[in-house]
């Protein structure tokens, strides 16, 4: 089964990026191409998901080389769902950037690099080859480096140094793990590896490799105790860039963890305990870190860490129900985190500050916008029927089923921490009577923007809020999908058969 169309989401983003480079000097054409391109990419990825959902796993062997030898691209339900989410977040951020990114940044090639980043993300989700995954990771990090530093403010550069160092370190560890794995098995194809790793007798070395993968992906997905680069860098770039980072970059690490630890390595008792303990500490440190922060964007950064812990807990419990919960939560989290960073950016455009101490009375001044912003905030907490509730419910069900009380306790504790943080944010930013803020000269306030830009910013937030409402109210459909993915991940024979074709 060789279906070359599954790489279309990847190729198309490259095409847009190249097209954008041709119109380097014209900002308006770039914005137009970026938005229409993202829209078409969204349609492509919807078609891909529908096709995979009806016809089963689609495979593409690059250059026609049969499975264990060539590079394979695989679109199963999990990867195509994530490609769809990438396209959704990409569209929203692209529209948001039209409103919020300053022209100086557009001149330095913001849009082409943004699309290269989306290309890297889609590629990482679709590939079925472990070394190819490494290459996609590199594409992602190099474009994220550029996006992070573009503009070159002092805080940005400092954040970037920490970010670059940690990510390069993660890549080296990942590469080392691939090297050892290749030495052990002589294969790079993930489906083939799954068969071969199971046969290796030297379990000690296999476990060492697994831990190396855990560390490498752990740095990327900001797992305790490797997360310190995240709150140091995510609040420094403009909000549109933070949005795409917060929504997708850490999640690609989570995707890789879920994929590698279900397909290639099956965690034994020791490894699942390690993952579980890491998850618990991630939830705690993220939640407590968010409590003491005052900068809105830093609070959201710490909340990312806290919720990565939830997904990791799903993997640590290791039953198909818990993994389904982790996937549902992943879906919800991508949409909501992207949206929250955009919301914080919009508030900044009104008020000129991110400090919760200085902000206030937003509800009094802009009641309609506040109601809109309440949707992502409270679906993050998971008040039913908003989207965060269902994912947590599935993880908890899975954990109770496996009588894993520790995970149950800490996931609930993490939810309460989130609830407390979000209510604090709500009362500080929206309800409290804020002091009059002095006008700052170097900031372009919202009311000074052109109407088109204003609509772009609010429209993209509205779009993502509607999607997260949709996930909440149409939860049955998403839940069925994630349970199916959970079952497929726990039992990878289908995947292996589709790739190796026997």
């Amino acid at each position, binding site marked *: 089964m060789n279906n070359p169309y599954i790489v279309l989401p990847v190729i198309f983003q490259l095409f847009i990026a190249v097209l954008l480079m041709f119109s380097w000097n014209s900002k308006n054409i770039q914005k137009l191409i970026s938005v229409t391109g993202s829209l078409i990419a969204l349609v492509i990825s919807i078609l891909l998901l529908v096709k995979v959902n009806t016809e089963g796993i689609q495979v593409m062997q690059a250059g026609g080389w049969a499975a264990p030898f060539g590079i394979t691209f695989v679109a199963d339900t999990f990867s195509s769902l994530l490609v769809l989410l990438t396209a959704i977040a990409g569209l929203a951020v692209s529209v948001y950037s039209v409103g919020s990114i300053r022209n100086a940044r557009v001149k330095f090639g913001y849009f082409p690099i943004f699309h290269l980043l989306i290309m890297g993300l889609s590629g990482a989700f679709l590939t079925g080859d472990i070394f190819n995954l490494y290459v996609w990771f590199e594409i992602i990090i190099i474009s994220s480096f550029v996006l992070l530093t573009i503009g070159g403010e*002092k805080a940005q550069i400092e954040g970037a140094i*920490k970010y670059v160092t940690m990510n390069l370190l993660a890549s080296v560890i990942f590469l080392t793990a691939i090297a050892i794995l290749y*030495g052990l098995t002589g294969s790079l194809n993930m489906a083939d590896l799954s068969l071969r790793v199971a046969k290796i007798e030297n379990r000690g070395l296999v476990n060492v490799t697994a831990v190396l993968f855990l560390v490498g992906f752990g740095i990327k997905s900001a797992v305790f105790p490797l997360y310190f680069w995240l709150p140091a860098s995510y609040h420094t770039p403009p909000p549109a860039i933070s949005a795409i980072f917060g929504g997708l970059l850490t999640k690609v690490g989570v995707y890789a963890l879920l994929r590698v630890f279900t397909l290639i390595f099956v965690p034994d008792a020791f490894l699942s305990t390690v993952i579980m303990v890491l998850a618990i500490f991630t939830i705690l440190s993220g939640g407590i870190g968010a409590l003491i922060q005052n900068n809105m964007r830093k609070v959201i950064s710490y909340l990312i860490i806290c919720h990565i812990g939830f997904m990791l807990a799903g993997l640590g419990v290791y039953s198909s129900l818990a993994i389904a919960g982790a996937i549902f939560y992943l879906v919800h989290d991508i949409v909501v985190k992207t949206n929250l960073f955009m919301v914080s950016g919009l508030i900044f455009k009104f008020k000129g500050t991110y400090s919760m101490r200085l902000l206030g009375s937003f509800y009094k001044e802009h009641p309609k916008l506040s109601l809109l912003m309440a949707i992502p905030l409270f679906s993050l907490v998971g008040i039913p029927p908003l989207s965060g509730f269902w994912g947590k419910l599935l993880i908890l069900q899975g954990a109770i089923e496996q009588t894993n009380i520790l995970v149950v306790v800490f996931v609930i504790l993490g939810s309460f921490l989130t609830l407390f943080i979000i209510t604090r944010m709500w009362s500080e930013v929206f309800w409290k009577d804020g002091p009059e803020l002095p006008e700052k000269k170097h900031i372009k306030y919202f009311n000074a923007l052109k109407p088109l830009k204003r609509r772009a910013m609010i429209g993209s937030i509205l779009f993502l809020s509607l999607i997260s409402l949709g996930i909440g109210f149409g939860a049955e459909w998403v839940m069925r999908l994630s349970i199916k993915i959970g079952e497929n991940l726990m039992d990878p024979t289908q995947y292996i058969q589709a790739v190796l074709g026997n």
Partner: protein
Amino acid sequence: MYAAGIYMMLRRSLVKLIIGLILLGNGANLLIFLLGKIVKGQPPIIASSEKMLGELYADPVPQALILTAIVISFGLQAFAIILVKRAYKVVKTDDLDEMNATDEDL
């Protein structure tokens, strides 16, 4: 090389950080090379009269992997060096302990 690289990264100086990263990258490349089981053998070309590789042959995959990894790490290191130079200009220090602006409460 790994040890030297990590030692360098733990120093406070930015330049040493870069050197550490370069050493680590090269260490990983050598590791791929070693674990690909170096043998003295024929190039892996199947003669037209046969169907399988007969004699001892050199595995080409690790070489391809290293080539890719070298190119990638080269690009990233170039970026990192420019970033460090820029950071030195903007922050006016090369001491990592003094880079705390991102932790300040805004």
